[in-house]
C-alpha cells in the first residue's frame, strides 16, 4: 500500500488542433477511488481512454506498477503486452453497456470472455465462475444463458461490472456508470459498487457528472474544464469548500450533494 499504482504526468491529447485534454498529472494509490467531474466536452472521456491505454497521447506518460512491482509505461508497451495488461489488471465500465458487452453472447459468455482470453478452457469451472459473479452483482444466476439484450439497463451495467471484475483487476475505469439509469436503480448500483470496491480493494477512476455519486464513492476528486484540471482535493473538500470559480459554479448549480 505504500507505493502508487498509477503515475500520470503531463498527459496531453489533441484531436487535430482541438484540445482533448492537456497537461494532466496525478498519482493514484491502491484502493483509491478518484472521481473526475466536469461539464460535457471538458475532456473526461478522453482522459479515461488515455489512462486505460485505449488512446495514444500526444504528449506525456501513464505509468502503471504491475503485480511484480515493475513500472510499465502504457503508451510505450507493445500492442500485445498492453492487451494482456488490459485483460488481467485493468477494467473498463462504459457509460453505454452496448460498448462494453457482447450483445450476441450470453451473460455467462460475457463474464467468461476475459478468462478464456487468458487461456482458461474448463467449461465447468468457467460456468461456475459465471454463476458466482452473477450472484455477486445481484443478477439472477438462472438467467446466465440469456443475452444482455434481454436485460434492463441496470442489469446490463451489473453484467458489465461482473465481466470486468472476473479477472480481479487492480484498477477499473468507469465512464458515467450510473447515468441513464433511473434513481432507484442508480442507488442499488451505487451500493453494489461501494461494496465491491471496498471488499476487493480496487482502485477506481470514475467519470461522473453526478456530484452526489462522487461524494459517496470517491476519496478524491478532480475537476476538469476545457481539457484542463482546474481543482483537485479530497472529495468532501472540493464539494464543501470549492475554490475555483468553475467548481463553485458546478457545486452551487446542484440542489444538494
Amino acid at each position, binding site marked *: 500500500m505504500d507505493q502508487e499504482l498509477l503515475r500520470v504526468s503531463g498527459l496531453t491529447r489533441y484531436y487535430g488542433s482541438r484540445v482533448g485534454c492537456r497537461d494532466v498529472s496525478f498519482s493514484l*494509490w491502491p484502493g*483509491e477511488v478518484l472521481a473526475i467531474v466536469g461539464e460535457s466536452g471538458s475532456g473526461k472521456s478522453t482522459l479515461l481512454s488515455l489512462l486505460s491505454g485505449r488512446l495514444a497521447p500526444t504528449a506525456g506518460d501513464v505509468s502503471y506498477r504491475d503485480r511484480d512491482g515493475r513500472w510499465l509505461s502504457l503508451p510505450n508497451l507493445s500492442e500485445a503486452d498492453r492487451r494482456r495488461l488490459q485483460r488481467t489488471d485493468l477494467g473498463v465500465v462504459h457509460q453505454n453497456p452496448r460498448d462494453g458487452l457482447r450483445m450476441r453472447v450470453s451473460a455467462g459468455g460475457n463474464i467468461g470472455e476475459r478468462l478464456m482470453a487468458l487461456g482458461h478452457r474448463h467449461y465447468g469451472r468457467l460456468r461456475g465462475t459465471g454463476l458466482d459473479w452473477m450472484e455477486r452483482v445481484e443478477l439472477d444466476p438462472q438467467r446466465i444463458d440469456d443475452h444482455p439484450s434481454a436485460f434492463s439497463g441496470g442489469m446490463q451495467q451489473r453484467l458489465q461490472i461482473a465481466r470486468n471484475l472476473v479477472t480481479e483487476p487492480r484498477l477499473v475505469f468507469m465512464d458515467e456508470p450510473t447515468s441513464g439509469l433511473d434513481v432507484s436503480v442508480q*442507488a*442499488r448500483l*451505487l*451500493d453494489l459498487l*461501494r461494496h465491491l470496491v471496498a471488499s476487493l480493494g480496487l482502485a477506481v477512476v470514475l467519470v461522473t457528472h453526478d456530484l452526489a455519486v462522487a*461524494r*459517496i464513492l470517491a*476519496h*478524491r476528486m478532480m475537476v476538469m474544464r476545457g481539457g484542463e484540471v482546474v481543482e483537485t*482535493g*479530497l472529495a*468532501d*473538500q472540493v464539494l*464543501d*469548500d470549492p*475554490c*475555483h*470559480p468553475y467548481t*463553485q*459554479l458546478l457545486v*452551487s448549480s446542484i440542489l444538494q450533494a
Partner: protein
Amino acid sequence: MNAPMISIRALAKTFTLHTQGGTRIRAFDGVDLDVAAGECVALHGPSGAGKSSLLRSIYANYRPSSGRVVVRHNGGSVDMTAAEPRAILDVRRKTLGYVSQFLRVIPRVSTLDLVAERLTAMGVEAGEAVARACGLLARLNIPERLWPLAPATFSGGEQQRVNIARGFVRDYPILLLDEPTASLDGENRRTVVNMILEAKGRGAAIVGIFHDDEVREAVADRCLHLTRPEEA
C-alpha cells in the same frame, strides 16, 4: 506535560465567492489553540463567528487560507493543512472522529451498517462491529425497528443520534463535535453528556460547539471565544 493532541497556530479562513462578485467572507482569523488528551475545549461565540468552519478546518474538510493544524497521529504528527489526501484519510480513519451537525444519508445503507462500518474499516471483525454498534444505538434510544432502515426518513433528533453513534462507536483519540445535543430531548442529552465525559475519561481530546449552557458547563474545561471578524 505531554505534547498536545491538537496544536493550532495562526489559523485563518476566508472564503471567496467567485459566483457572487468575488465577495470575500472571513470565517475566522488568527486562531491559536492547544488541546491536551483528556481535555474538552468549547468553541463559543455568536452565530456566524466561524465555529463550525474552524471545526471543519481541523478535520481538513475546509482548506484554511493560512496557519497550521497539527494533530498527533500514529505516534507522530500530521499537519492537516499540508498533508496528502490519503494521509488525511488515514488520520480521519484512526484518530479524528467528527460528529457533524447533520447526518449525511447514503441511499440503501442501513443505520446499523452506517455505524458498524466505522469499525470494519479499522479491521474489526463484522460480528463484533455489529454487536458494538447495536449496543450504542440502544444506549442512544434508537428504537430497534429502525436499525435495519436507511436513516433518510428519520426525525432530526434520530438522525443526530445516529451521527453521534458513528462518532463514538470507536474510541477516537480526538473528537470534534458540532452541536451534538442541539435537537435532543433531556434524557438523550444526558446520555450524550455522559458519553462525552467517558471519552474524556479515557483520554480523548475534544473540541466541541455546545449551544446549551448546561451541556457546555458539564463537559468543557475551557472556552475559546470567537468573534465575527469584520468583513475582509
